[in-house]
């Protein structure tokens, strides 16, 4: 039986089912306390979405505070035979935390303990609900940091990062989440609590930690992670290069890496993004520029200074009209502020945005950027580009208003064209946001039915019932437009 078939048969409104679900809510209340089981429409409606444009109303939301509570919650959901959808901070951009088939949303937001910091071993053990930036905050005073830094790092959770194998601007130098997770505490479908991996890199046997990272909540619930800490670099240099032509900016990206510099970050924002940032929460980017490139190099002082100077020269030779160099940490934070808030700032231009996460080989950036601009023109849609140029991870944001008739359909069609362009250029459909609900229809651009079947079999090893985060990752006929149905009144008492 597929996930869809299973839940359809289970979801009959037979009185028996309702009684069973009332029993489930009662059981959940016993486990985590009344206050942390939500069923009232005014409590659960806020969990119908994450950072994406998709919405599906959960039936019940539960907030366990410990691993043993999570295990008991999983056991209760299994007994009641309902789906389980893990949720961190709900900042995801692909609908990964949206309860596509209803069921129980398990918010890990209360699991916020950093259980252990071992600076000599350079490890921190953080619970799933710990905010990404709080890991670095806990060790920054001693000269350490946690490297993966999604732009939402002030809000997103470690559990969510693990689920999506999240990247960030500094992925270019340090790698993504999977390169920084040594071990995971997980709750499996039968309620078992176990540790995968360990406290040292590369344990023998199958890399099950690696399998879990990026599995988007489809294998089980991550409750804690052993994270690698890194030593803060001696020196950091940050430059902002301002371009009048997008082509020049993308060429410079290729040249910088070709020159043998490995920047810690190499970030691009286009004119539309600059307009959003300067309207929403100004960072001092020039509004008339076609593109700005943020370049950061770090390491021992001598290297950082030389690499920064080299990068500056390449920018100037490549047609930058101005290169600003941050003179101190405050200036550096200012240059970064606009980039970190760029997604949120898009609200200053339009009520909704649909973000793509395509990846292309760096050398194809100039061409793909031109194609994206052409797709925008063809569909009559505004596209704001803000992306990790250094590793070719694009974030074209299509701006629109959901309420305008026909717009959503056009936006989704344009998004599909963008992803097809990325794949045609030798790239992929996602760099770091995950597949979630939003991109699963495009999985077959990259994978054959045999590939997908192999993945499904891996999944069944961990989650034979398909209970965890159903309808995610794997292609099903459900389209985005269907996921974002016209808002309907929420019946009181829903299904309990």
């Amino acid at each position: 039986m597929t996930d869809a078939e299973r839940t359809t048969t289970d979801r009959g409104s037979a009185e028996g089912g309702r009684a069973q679900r009332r029993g489930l809510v009662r059981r959940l209340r016993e486990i985590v306390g009344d206050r942390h089981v939500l069923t009232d429409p005014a409590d659960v409606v806020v969990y119908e979405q994450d950072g994406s444009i998709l919405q599906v109303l959960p039936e019940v939301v539960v907030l366990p505070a410990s691993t043993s509570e999570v295990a008991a919650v999983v056991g209760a959901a299994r007994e009641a035979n309902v789906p389980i959808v893990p949720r961190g901070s709900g900042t995801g951009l692909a609908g990964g935390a949206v309860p596509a088939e209803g069921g129980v949303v398990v918010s890990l937001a209360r699991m916020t303990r950093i259980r252990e910091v071992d600076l000599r071993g350079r490890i921190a053990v953080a619970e799933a609900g710990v905010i990404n930036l709080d890991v670095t905050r806990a060790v920054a005073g001693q000269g350490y940091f946690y490297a993966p830094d999604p732009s939402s790092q002030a809000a997103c959770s470690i559990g969510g990062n693990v689920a999506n194998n999240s990247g960030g601007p500094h992925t270019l130098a340090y790698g993504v989440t999977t390169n920084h997770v040594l071990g995971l505490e997980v709750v499996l479908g039968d309620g078992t609590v176990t540790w995968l991996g360990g406290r040292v890199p590369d344990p023998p046997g199958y890399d099950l930690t690696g399998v879990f990272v990026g599995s988007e909540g489809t294998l089980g619930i991550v409750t804690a992670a052993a994270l690698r800490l890194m030593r803060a670099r001696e020196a950091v240099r940050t430059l902002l290069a301002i371009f009048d032509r997008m082509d020049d900016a993308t060429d410079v990206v290729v040249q910088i890496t070709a020159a043998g510099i490995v920047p810690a970050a190499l970030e691009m924002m286009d004119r539309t993004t600059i307009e959003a940032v300067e309207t929403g929460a100004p960072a001092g980017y020039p509004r008339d520029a076609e593109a700005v490139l943020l370049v950061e190099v770090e390491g021992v002082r001598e290297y950082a200074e030389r690499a920064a100077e080299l990068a500056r020269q390449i920018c100037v030779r490549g047609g930058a009209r101005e290169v600003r160099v941050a003179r101190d940490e405050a200036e550096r934070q200012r240059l970064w502020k606009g980039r970190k808030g760029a997604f949120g700032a898009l609200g200053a231009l339009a009520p909704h945005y649909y973000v793509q996460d395509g990846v292309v080989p760096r050398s194809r950036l100039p061409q793909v950027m031109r194609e994206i601009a052409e797709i925008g023109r063809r569909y009559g849609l505004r596209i704001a580009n803000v992306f990790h140029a250094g590793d070719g991870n694009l974030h074209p944001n299509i701006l629109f208003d959901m309420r305008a008739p026909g717009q959503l359909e056009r936006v989704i069609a344009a998004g599909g064209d963008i992803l097809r362009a990325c794949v045609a250029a030798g790239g992929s459909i996602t760099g770091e946001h995950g597949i979630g609900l939003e991109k699963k229809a495009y999985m077959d651009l990259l994978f054959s039915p045999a590939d997908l079947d192999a993945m499904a079999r891996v999944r069944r090893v961990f989650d034979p019932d398909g209970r965890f985060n159903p309808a995610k990752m794997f292609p099903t006929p459900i389209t985005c437009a269907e996921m974002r149905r016209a808002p309907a009144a929420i019946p009181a008492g829903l299904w309990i």
Partner: protein
Amino acid sequence: MGEHGGGGAQERGGRGASAGPAGRRTAAAIPAIPELDRCVHCGLCLNHCPTYRVTRLEAESPRGRIHLVRAAAEGRIDLGERFAEHLYLCLMCRACETACPSGVQYGRIAEAARAVLGPPGSPVARWAARAVFTRLLPFPGRVRRAARLLGAAQRLGLAALARALPGRVGEMAAMLPAVPRHFFTPATEVFPALGPARARVGLLTGCVMSTLFADVDAATVRVLQRNGCEVVVPRTQVCCGALNVHNGEVASARAMARANVAAFLAAGVEAAVVNAAGCGAAMKEYGHLLADDPAWAEPARRLAGMVADVTEFLARLGPLPPAGRVDLTVTYQDPCHLAHGQKVRAQPRQLLGLIPGLRLVEMDGSDRCCGSAGIYNITHPHMSRTLLREKMQAIARTGARAVVAPNPGCMLQLRYGARAYGPAVAVYHLVDLLDESYRAGDA
């Protein structure tokens, strides 16, 4: 119940039922709020929200509350008890506005929703709140009489008796400071500038400032005079109406705003100086509050543009450096409605830096709410105390002997915190210290 305490349901003793007709809120409908469109639910506000940090519930976060208002505006959820509880557990500290990359003005969304809901709490509490907002606050004479009554009760020892009472009444009595014998009711309307005149400014004396903190008003006048300002105290001014706006009493708030617009514009001043952060933030919103009033929209915008916090005004004017030493280590609490509401952060610190002998040690999260939040410490004592305890711990870590907080609500709350939880720090308004330094220098 959670180990943190706090939370809408807990504060009101039990889960409300939002199913079925919403009873006394039947006429309610959320109007179209354009500001809602700016929120793309990125979630960057979450960790900046004091109530989310404590409860970890999405519905107690700015993003969650905006989503609730949106769902209600779309008719998808009704305006039941739970909805009201979520909207009213918000402190209106507006820390989310500082964090928001889209520049969403959350305060306006929440105020619009509260205007539909009316004041919070039980029917009796709502009736009492309405009485305070419409029959007491708009009338400075009544405010003073009420404060005098309170002072008399304190001197008769009734307050000590009340403090001994268990529960809410006892706690409320414990929060109140000793009411001074004299209020700020100057006989003259104009105070001359000392030295060469540099500006003519109006002063909002404030309902709480002019009674419970009359000495702060007096110190403000002296500091302004000392900086070459002719200070006008318009007689027809009233309370700014901030509490009314925050608690869904918009009609009375508009009437109070009109009275103040008239009073200050007639005074012929170049700036309306305010020494209470909450009042200043509210007066800067007068243009928005009266936007739909054809006769008053323009004058209201004009006055709003003239409003300045006393620290903001002095920094802009160029403060004359005070000469007297004030040997004291202080920490600075950013009042929410100064830091988040008015984006005034650097100026108070700059002024403190001018005082010889004074040392400023920053605390962690100086711009996080102390839990005072207008009448919040009365309506939501549990959450308020949770935040206050955290605040007092942050203060303790600085080792400072005193806290500077240029807002009466914060001052009341922090003084209570110093008594109830320690450390036993003194709590000052910034002009208290400036005044002391000027006077010591002149002596």
